[in-house]
């Protein structure tokens, strides 16, 4: 499987603050990758580095085999919908399609018209008068109709109501299936991504906390519940992501590829949301100076 986004030691600094640091990634093609993280985790920075809107402070990034920012031919291969889905308020829907046609040699006018028609948008309407959902759909249409190989969506559903959110993602998935795109989309809500993503990147505190194919991640993480135990006495191939203790009982979230053999544990599968939250929590703990997990008492 070829990789579409490959980053090594990628970092971006604004003044004295690192928005992203030491980010190493390898997103294989053909996936719908979800980029999750709390607000301010560096999601937007990472995405803007991918599309070449930003230049890295440290490290290197390769997108579709070349370094952004790129030539027109390379720009044509990556579609981008920025946060807040910017559109020109004074320009009509039809003007936006004309803009796309003029600025992209690979523009698929038929596809764009079909989408606008299906979405029920009036081509003469000004973009400023569209609803948030319609604007997001227009921005997505612009990005899809240039027929990119890689589509980057920065919080595309953040401003949408739950219904519009569902419609948007459903529509996105149809386009992905139709055109065989690789998609990276970000959100601070796991629930948004759960239905559509088969690849996951967890970003927290400016660092990549977890990355991998969703099914593999779910298969290799377990929640162990049993009699209270010192985490140091767990097998060395079980990486502890999260630990909590009561007087008599311990609960661990561990990562391991080996089967759990200890009969003292009740083993449960972990849902995607719990998994993501555990990794985000781990990042926050690390931030506070690696507080020992044992100290977390009730």
């Amino acid at each position, binding site marked *: 499987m070829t990789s579409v986004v490959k980053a090594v030691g990628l970092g971006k600094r604004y003044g004295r603050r690192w928005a992203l640091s030491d980010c190493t990634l390898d997103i294989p093609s053909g996936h719908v990758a979800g980029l999750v993280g709390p607000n301010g985790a560096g999601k937007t920075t990472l995405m803007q580095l991918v599309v070449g809107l930003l*230049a890295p402070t440290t490290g290197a990034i390769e997108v579709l085999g070349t370094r952004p920012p790129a030539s027109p031919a390379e720009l*044509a291969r990556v579609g981008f919908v920025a946060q807040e889905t910017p559109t020109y308020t004074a320009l009509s829907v039809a003007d936006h399609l004309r803009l796309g046609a*003029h600025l992209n040699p*690979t523009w698929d006018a038929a596809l764009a018209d079909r989408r606008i028609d299906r979405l029920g948008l009036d081509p003469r309407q000004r973009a400023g008068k569209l609803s948030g959902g319609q604007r997001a759909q227009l921005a997505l249409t612009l990005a899809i109709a240039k027929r990119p190989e890689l589509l980057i969506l920065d919080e595309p559903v953040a401003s949408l109501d739950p219904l519009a959110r569902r419609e948007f993602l459903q529509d996105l998935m149809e386009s992905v299936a139709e055109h065989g795109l690789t998609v990276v989309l970000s959100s601070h809500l796991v629930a948004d991504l759960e239905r559509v993503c088969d690849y996951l990147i967890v970003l927290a505190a400016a660092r990549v906390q977890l990355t991998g194919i969703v099914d593999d991640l779910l298969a290799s993480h377990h929640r162990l519940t049993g009699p209270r135990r010192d985490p140091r006495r767990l097998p060395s191939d079980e990486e502890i992501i999260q630990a909590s203790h009561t007087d008599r009982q311990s609960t661990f979230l561990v990562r391991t590829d080996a089967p759990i053999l200890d009969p003292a544990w009740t083993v449960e599968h972990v849902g995607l949301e719990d998994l993501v939250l555990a990794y985000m929590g781990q990042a926050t703990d690390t931030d506070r100076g690696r507080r020992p997990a044992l100290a977390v008492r009730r």
Partner: protein
Amino acid sequence: MIWLTWRQFRTPAIVASGALAVTAVVLGVTGPHLIHLYDTSGIATCHGAPDCQQLIDAFQSHYQLLRLIGTAVVVAPGIIGMFWGAPLIARELETGMHRLVWTQSVTRTRWLLVKLAVVGLASMAAAGLFSLMVTWWSGPIDRVTMDRFGTGMFGERGLVPVGYAAFAFALGVAAGLLIRRTLPAMVTTLVGFLAVRMAVSFWVRPNLIAPVVRRYALNLATVGFGSVGSGAQTLLPNAPNLPNAWIYSMRIVDAAGHPLPAHLVTTACPQIGMDAGQGPPPGGSTVISKAVPAHAQRILSDCIAKIGVTYHEVVTYQPASRYWPLQWSELAIFLGLTLALSGLCFWWVRRGLS
């Protein structure tokens, strides 16, 4: 990219075309009348005639419109810089639209190039057309005023408005790109443009070409008398007959270049100005010229003959023939600044801002 630039620039372009059309109509209607008046009133040939000055005053007062139009030519480049230049990039950055445009299949260098070229050339064309109309229309008045280098006039006619507009536009674009906010960029543009425009008018323009220095022997045509401030009566240099010239200075000096001291005049010709009818002018440095009685004229003439042995008048000036070389030089300066600012914009945009 050209389509998008035009689409975004369409409304301002229509507004500007409308304003130019209205100006063209107003000037087109009044212009021929002005020329007719000039030809028939006898101003063109009245030089030296006693009532010529009255004729000139009457002619000029006829055209209050000139003041309005002249002001418009002065402020037009500033308006272009503020309303076309500053928002061009700043508004895109402010609304985040650059993230849409820069991720289409057009490099940001090309994006900037097209925007600068289309709107920049439009700015220059608008300013050029306006200046052309005004230069034509004010022709008769300018031929009467005979002061093409005058503070207002030089910058309101001919080629220089084109340079001002190009510079103001580029300054606006650069300010918008660096500041990234429309309103502060507009203010910066206006302030910066005024500062540069004034600096060039007052310090650069006089030094572009070395002025001509000419010596005149003292005679009644070149020298009058009066006092500076509340000082004693002395000889004062008079403007020589140099139509349309830009006179830097007139001085009465001796062979070594020392100025004429007032006490020397008082000693050599004690009677000067005493019989001029009235007393000395009541303070202030304003030169008041008035008809002088014949005997006062004689005293002056004698005085000039005495002083003229060792003193002469030196006039430093740009002759009228330097008008176009100076216009071209100033245009070149502003176009050079425009190119430098554009270069800065390209460098900044490629440097990966966001």
